[in-house]
């Protein structure tokens, strides 16, 4: 398998790399170390540059005005975009345009007019509401939020947790159980307006990701018209599952980008820092950490690109996406940890981005499907068919 980028991909990667180093990294010197947003004037200036470069709305299909970037190139871009302090969760502070909710591309024309197009114009924000207090790893069975038919409407009751952006969104996708006897075949996806009576953002959920919070939602007799069912009734799990599988590839890529940056910092520091009369780089124990970092970076990069290539060719890629997510999140955590060790005391401080990456990288082993679930998916594919 040849993962060598094409000439065009190399040019794009170089363009993004220069943008991150020249525009984003210098900006962070003035921001709080845990910042997740940049001042509006900087956002406007930088998003203007991105539009001029032709990269605005990276994940938007061509027919909706996006740049039409394939998944392999998108993966290479994601590796570059995350190489700064906030890069793991807020790559380039969103100046490449919001990712939006890919499920809306499958919506009805009426739904596209009301939700998708305003999102693409930057007028509305959406959120993805799947996980519940009863669990997130097995949403098909854990979803207890109920939607009951009432004439032409549905009445939704329940709660959601670890939902990002719900407090700022004008609408969201809520997954609710519409048939209690059917497991994954009894879940429906609803488009919910956040100004409707019965929709409540109850609290902020503070986590290790101290720059950015999640929220807990409560839905009380929330009345949703049939016209706001996304896809078919009882087919919502397929919508959620498809999104989760595809999302694992850029999710892994962002971890690789941060690991590359952490490794570059470790190498630079090892060359300049002297102990007992010689640079750290001459110590075999330090060299060993740097070698292990490189092995982790390269294996996860290849695995992630393999998943992207398979998806791009239209082949089944669920197992490869799971492997990429599993490997890159664990390898990324190890690389950041070793790079902190190379730096010693200064590596633990907020003076450097390592401590933020260390905290945020820990979440990556749980987010987008815990790594234990990825192992389950891989085992299922290797052993053939589903098993209990």
């Amino acid at each position, binding site marked *: 398998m040849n993962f060598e980028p094409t000439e065009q991909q190399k040019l794009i990667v170089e363009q993004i790399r220069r943008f991150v180093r020249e525009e984003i990294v210098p900006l962070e010197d003035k921001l*709080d170390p845990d910042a997740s947003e940049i001042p509006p004037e900087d956002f406007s200036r930088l998003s203007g540059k991105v539009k001029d470069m032709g990269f605005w709305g990276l994940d938007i299909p061509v027919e909706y005005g996006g740049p039409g970037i394939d998944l392999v190139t998108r993966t290479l871009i994601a590796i570059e975009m995350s190489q700064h302090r906030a890069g793991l969760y807020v790559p380039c502070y969103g100046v490449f345009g919001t990712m939006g909710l890919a499920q809306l591309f499958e919506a009805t024309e009426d739904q596209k007019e009301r939700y998708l197009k305003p999102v693409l114009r930057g007028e509305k924000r959406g959120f993805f509401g799947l996980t519940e207090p009863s669990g997130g790893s097995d949403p098909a069975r854990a979803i207890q939020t109920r939607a009951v038919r009432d004439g032409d409407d549905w009445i939704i009751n329940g709660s959601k947790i670890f939902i990002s952006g719900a407090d700022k969104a004008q609408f969201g996708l809520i997954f609710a159980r519409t048939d209690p006897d059917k497991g994954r075949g009894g879940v429906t996806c609803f488009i919910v307006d956040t100004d409707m009576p019965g929709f409540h953002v109850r609290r902020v959920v503070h986590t290790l990701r101290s720059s950015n919070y999640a929220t807990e939602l409560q839905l009380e007799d929330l009345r949703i018209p049939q016209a706001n069912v996304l896809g078919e009734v009882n087919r919502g799990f397929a919508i959620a599952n498809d999104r989760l599988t595809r999302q694992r590839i850029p999710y892994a890529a962002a971890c690789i980008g941060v690991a590359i940056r952490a490794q570059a910092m470790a190498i630079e520091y090892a060359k300049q820092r002297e102990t007992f009369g010689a640079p750290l780089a001459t110590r075999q124990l330090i060299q060993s950490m740097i070698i292990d970092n490189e092995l982790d970076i390269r294996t996860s990069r290849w695995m992630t690109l393999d998943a992207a290539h398979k998806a791009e060719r239209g082949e089944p890629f669920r197992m490869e996406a799971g492997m990429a997510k599993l490997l890159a999140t664990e390898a990324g955590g190890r690389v950041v940890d070793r790079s902190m060790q190379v730096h010693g005391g200064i590596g633990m401080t907020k003076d450097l981005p390592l401590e933020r990456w260390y905290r945020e990288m820990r979440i990556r082993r749980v987010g987008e499907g815990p790594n234990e679930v990825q192992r389950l998916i891989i085992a299922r594919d290797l052993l053939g068919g589903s098993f209990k």
Partner: protein
Amino acid sequence: MAIRMTKPWQPLDRTIIVALPGQLGVYELANATGQTVAIGFAGGRSLFGLRSELLAIADSPPHDATQYRCEINMQYQTRYRELLMLHVADHGALPLHNRDNPPINLGRLRPL
């Protein structure tokens, strides 16, 4: 879980503030009637955390602030935003001082 800051107010007095630890966290300022006039944080770039932030404020308090209360919190960014959203939920608007420089994209909370 109590999400509002409920600690007793302290006088915004340098002799009291100097005893604060130099740690990161969030604070609220109030005027003499107890109205919260500002919510802020001591972040990773502050020299001596809450102590240096509040000492600087004590030299020129905004909106006639005479009292403060604070909370050591490493999650100062998300806690700061939570306190602002709670204030808006309870009072319908940001504290006076925060209206001059409102945070970007503040969300909405409807706490119980």
